[in-house]
């Protein structure tokens, strides 16, 4: 059981981790799809990569703390090995002009991806005046005081959490 959960989570080590992992878990009959996505919704309230918290919550429910350790290893190890390999290759070949151009081109798309993410999330969000003001203030603070992003975010989340409760429509 524990070993099987390692392979599952390893399979899920990708860009579309959450649905892939869900598919693998449902296929093995460990959880129903609804229950998996409930767990995923819970995982979003935790800090850290969503794939990690989802994998941990699922495996704790399925096989307790031994499962959690297996899931942790399963989420961390494969990408770790790939990154170490890529970094090693870059150390050797990184100075080749073609590789340099590849990295330049790949790096140039990053603002485009972030802008697309902002676009999608903004469209999906249920906006109201309060949330727009919160967003504007929080963004401004984060940009103006980059060194203090940790306290700004933690404080901001607590305040927004309390305000959501106050202005319940």
């Amino acid at each position, binding site marked *: 059981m524990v070993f099987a959960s390692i392979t599952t989570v390893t399979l899920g080590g990708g860009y579309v981790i959450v649905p892939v992992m869900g598919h693998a878990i449902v296929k093995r009959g460990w959880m129903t799809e609804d229950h998996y996505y409930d767990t995923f919704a819970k995982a979003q309230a935790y800090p850290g990569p969503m794939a990690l918290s989802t994998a941990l919550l699922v495996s704790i429910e399925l096989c307790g703390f031994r499962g959690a350790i297996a899931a942790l290893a399963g*989420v961390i190890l494969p990408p770790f090995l790939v990154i170490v390999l890529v970094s090693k290759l870059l150390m050797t070949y990184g100075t080749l002009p073609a590789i340099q*151009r590849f990295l330049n081109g790949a790096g140039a798309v990053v603002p*485009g991806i972030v802008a697309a993410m902002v676009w999608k999330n903004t469209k999906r969000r249920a906006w109201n005046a309060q949330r727009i003001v919160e967003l504007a203030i929080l963004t401004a603070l984060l940009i103006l005081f980059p060194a203090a992003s940790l306290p700004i975010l933690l404080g901001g989340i607590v305040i927004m959490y309390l305000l959501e409760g106050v202005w319940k429509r």
Partner: protein
Amino acid sequence: METLSVAWTFFKIGIIAFGGGWSTVGIIKNAVVPLWIDEENFRSLIAIAQSTPGPIALNSATMIGWNHGGMLTAIVATLSVVAFPVLMIALTTLLASKVSINKTSINEALRTGSIAMMLMTLWVLRPTSMDPLLLLYAVATFAIGAFTKINTLWAILGAGAFNALLGPALRSIIGL
């Protein structure tokens, strides 16, 4: 000790790394540029971290660690980034029914928070060079990411390959 300061930096990143990878990138950038990596290399690092399997925060921790002290630092940095999330999950599992948080309120607060983090990420990673070809890649990627269902991974790899193979030829044709 560099290993220790890498570890501490990524531990702190782990505390606020919610809302999916892209909201965390700005926080990571503020923490590591220009201390451990320069602006341009950071963009390439993010492109690599996004196009290899695994969460982006984890991958960038591994890479920064690897480039600043080798294997040991890479392991320490990777573990640091997951330390706090793992701790939180362990704690809430142990305390299960003793704490009650309003799930809707916390999720709404986190959603607003993560959009703010993404906007900040967009601000700190705004294109720095006015190179038209590089700007074109960014604009095309935005269009693909915002209006199609194509995985932006293909935009990363596509722009990289295109720039490596055809970049110089295209530049000489349009006279850049």
